[in-house]
């Protein structure tokens, strides 16, 4: 039952919309105020549950875009036939309340180098390959995003930026059109800092005037051209639709990347 407090369990809690940010015509971020939020890790998500007046409930998972230490912010893409996303993107206002459950996940997560020393003393956390050997922290970060799959990866990029973490990081991010690129200005600004973050954008449905980025799908050839070579032994995080994630993951394995260093998260088409 909602709100049943059992020690150590994950329960539904009230969240209030503290702010909304329109990211693209179809995507909006909601900054949530959750009393007693114990913090989250970069890459985690939370579940949102909406309850209708007749008691009907619908729940969906949304990745957290904000870095650890900040209030949880979810970024939501509107799916026209969805039960939850049209409300979150089109109707939710500051002060609205709904239920959330989170933070969720301990596998698809990344820690900045500077934040990792406390964890390292106990041999690395669960699901962090190489954590106990120290290898984890030295490895570069390879992030591959398909459309709204950028959201959990953005928490990692923001963590890296806020922690002044020098881990060399590379993002390959595919969107349909330039207008659909989420966090575009922020990504441009972070990449221009010249502190070790590179970002490659590719568009599949248009080539805007003056566009100097790629206009191709993310496939083996594109990853071979842009991504770290397998000899760098990067930690790889891939997020997007199931088809995108599996194509990108198998292309990287074909290129010689160790499957054990590739973490994936698949988004569904239910919204």
């Amino acid at each position: 039952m909602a709100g049943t407090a059992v020690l150590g369990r994950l329960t539904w809690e009230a969240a209030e919309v503290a702010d909304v940010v329109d990211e693209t015509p179809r995507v909006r971020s909601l900054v949530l105020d959750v009393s007693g939020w114990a913090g989250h890790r970069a890459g985690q998500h939370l579940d949102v549950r909406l309850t209708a007046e007749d008691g009907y409930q619908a729940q969906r998972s949304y990745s957290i875009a904000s870095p650890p230490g900040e209030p949880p912010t979810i970024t939501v893409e509107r799916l026209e036939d969805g039960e939850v996303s049209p409300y979150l993107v089109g109707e939710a206002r500051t002060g609205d309340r709904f239920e959330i459950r989170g933070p969720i996940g301990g596998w698809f997560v990344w820690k900045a180098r500077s934040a990792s020393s406390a964890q390292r003393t106990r041999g690395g956390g669960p699901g962090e390959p190489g954590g106990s050997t120290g290898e984890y922290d030295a490895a570069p970060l390879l992030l591959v995003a398909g459309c709204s799959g950028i959201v959990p990866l953005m928490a990692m990029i923001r963590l890296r930026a806020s922690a002044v973490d020098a881990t060399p990081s590379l993002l390959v991010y595919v969107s349909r059109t330039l207008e659909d690129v989420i966090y575009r200005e922020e990504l441009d600004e972070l990449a221009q800092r010249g502190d070790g973050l590179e970002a490659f954008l590719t568009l599949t449905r248009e080539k805007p005037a003056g566009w100097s980025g790629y206009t191709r799908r993310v496939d083996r050839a594109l990853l071979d051209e842009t991504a770290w070579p397998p000899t760098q032994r990067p930690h790889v995080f891939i997020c997007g639709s199931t088809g995108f994630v599996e194509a990108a993951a198998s292309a990287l394995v074909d290129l010689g990347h160790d499957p054990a260093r590739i973490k994936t998260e698949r988004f569904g088409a239910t919204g």
Partner: protein
Amino acid sequence: MSEARLDGNAIGGLLHTVFGAEMTAAVGVCGTCGAAGAVAELHVYVRAPGVVVRCPKCESVLMRVVESPDRTWIDFSGLRTLEIRR
């Protein structure tokens, strides 16, 4: 085709609520083929009534979970072991 299939990350909240612990990094061993992997990597189908989890190697059913307002019904008989790391 593949869009109906997700992965174990999608049921992280459900499993955390059921087990009282983070479960996506837990390692499951398939009772049919013996493949071992993180729960996050398992194949998950959420469009059935309830949730069906299959082995990514041999597609055997590993778990079935059905939630209703007054109970949660769990069948984990397809799993040989589930190791929860602390």
